[in-house]
């Protein structure tokens, strides 16, 4: 059974069409990548998939139930989002922030238990932030804040992980580490990833399904070999590209 199903989805933002009549099926084990130019609506589509932006038309179903009718808390147990930016208006420690990931799993008046705390600490260790638990979030570097966001998502532990440019602010080592980590999580226990990314080389390395948004409402989706061709990508980015075949897979460089 699909984790999330989109049927005849029309999405637009500020009057600009993002996709028209999109049919999308995210299955357990899938690793989707959404590609498109700046302003093509990748983030809007990701938010739509999370139920945070209403589509103009069409339905999204989670386990056979319409997403629009589900309570937010129930959605949050299934779908987690790593947003492009983090907005911390108030001081909070790293540990407190990562614990917010447990919210969908706790009863209304329940306090976080030792098990929740253990999950949070485990997630912090996984993203190399174990030593910074008591640090104020506002003192973290961009890359550390990004990894804290990933740790919060791991603590939330949803089935579908929607990631908006997860490699933002990360150095090369951390890009690979974090995407490996998220990939492993997605590969376990019937989970799936859906990533918005600009780096074609990371995208080909970590994803096996691709959705191209052309910015005029038309979309293209499929496996790597079906979709990631020179002509499709040049049309997508309106920029000439060169494909270099390497032992680890194809590499794309702008011409």
């Amino acid at each position: 059974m699909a984790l999330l199903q989109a049927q005849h989805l029309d999405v637009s933002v500020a009057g600009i069409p993002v996709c028209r009549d999109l049919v999308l099926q995210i299955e357990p084990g899938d690793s989707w990548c959404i590609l498109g130019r700046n302003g093509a609506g990748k983030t809007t589509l990701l938010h739509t998939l999370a139920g945070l932006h209403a589509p103009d038309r069409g339905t999204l179903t989670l386990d056979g139930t319409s997403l629009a009718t589900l309570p937010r808390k129930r959605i949050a147990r299934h779908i987690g989002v790593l947003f492009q930016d983090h907005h911390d208006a108030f001081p909070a420690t790293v540990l407190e922030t990562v614990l917010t990931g447990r919210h969908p799993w706790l009863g209304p008046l329940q306090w976080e238990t030792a098990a929740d705390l253990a999950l949070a600490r485990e997630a912090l260790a996984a993203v190399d932030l174990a030593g910074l638990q008591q640090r104020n979030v506002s003192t973290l570097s961009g890359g550390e804040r990004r990894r804290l966001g990933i740790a919060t998502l791991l603590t939330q532990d949803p089935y579908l992980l929607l990631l908006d440019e997860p490699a933002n602010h990360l150095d090369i080592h951390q890009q690979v580490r974090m995407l490996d980590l998220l990939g492993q999580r997605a590969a376990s226990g019937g989970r799936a990833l859906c990533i918005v990314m600009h780096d074609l080389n990371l995208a080909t390395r970590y994803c096996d399904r691709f959705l191209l948004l052309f910015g005029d409402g038309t979309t293209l989706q499929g496996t790597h070999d079906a979709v990631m061709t020179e002509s499709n990508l040049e049309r997508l980015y309106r920029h000439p590209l060169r494909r270099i075949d390497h032992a680890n897979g194809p590499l794309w460089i702008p011409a």
Partner: protein
Amino acid sequence: MTAVGGTRMIRATSLLAFLMLLAVCAALISLMTGSIESGWRDLLAALSGNSDDTAAVVIMELRWPRTAAAFTTGALLATAGALMQVLLRNPLADPYVLGVSGGAATGALLAMLYGLGTLWLHGAAFGGALLSMLLVFALAHGSGSWSSHRLLLTGVVVAAGWGAVISFLLAVSPDQGLRSMLFWLMGDLSFTGIPRAGAGVLLGGLVLAVALGRPLNILTHGEQTAAALGVTVPVLRRFIYLLASLLTATAVTVAGNIGFVGLIVPHMLRLLGLRDHRVLLPAAALLGGSLLVIADTLARTVLAPRQLPVGILTALVGVPLFLALLWHGRDRHPAQA
């Protein structure tokens, strides 16, 4: 209760116990201070109810209602301030920023202008506050989007409108009424009885607010993040708005526009490192209440027999306290200070 949850609970409980002790001390000092000296014996006699000498009468009839009113008002304002800060995602918001107090003041001044009694004055103040609250709610709702910016702008503009109405009412009022009007505007506890309704609103509001503590914590990380973590953000925000406005309206009705408590008390607790709203909100209520009891005690004793509006004292007590905390806290929360 688990070990870790246990230590967190113990820390929270000991902080709240300390603040409760502070509140009791503030109340005792307030009850024993005034133009008639009273000692422990008078206080005990008055509280046990089997004394009818002057000291006991002063304590039970004058100081006790006033102390209770001061504590309730301070607690209401501090709780409302903490909620408003989360709602507007701005640590510098206060309970009055969205115009509730302006509406209340307009109602109160109109009641004074027409020479109506205390009950009418309270009713008019509360009615004005509710009117302003609903006006901002409806206007900010507008096309359906209910962003913090839109709410803040609507509230600030409505507050400015009330400001003009208040100035107009002051300008057309006869001279003999001006003094009591100005005192009301500055916040005045000298005409209050025991605020039973106010205490009820405080307790009910506090219970509701604390029950929403965890969603409030999550809302501080941003509306989108909160929604993705399972918080029904639009419902929660509307509820916080109505609750904070109701608490503010009640406080203003009891004691007029007492400034500063609602801004600095929650902020002070945040600077001290308290962030969990399940503890922060009751702590704010206790500290806000204590601070206002202390300020009111000073207001009626520093220049005795002359009484000062308590609003002046909250600022005089609060400003240095706040600056000291800011100065002290700048190393621990550099990015925040």
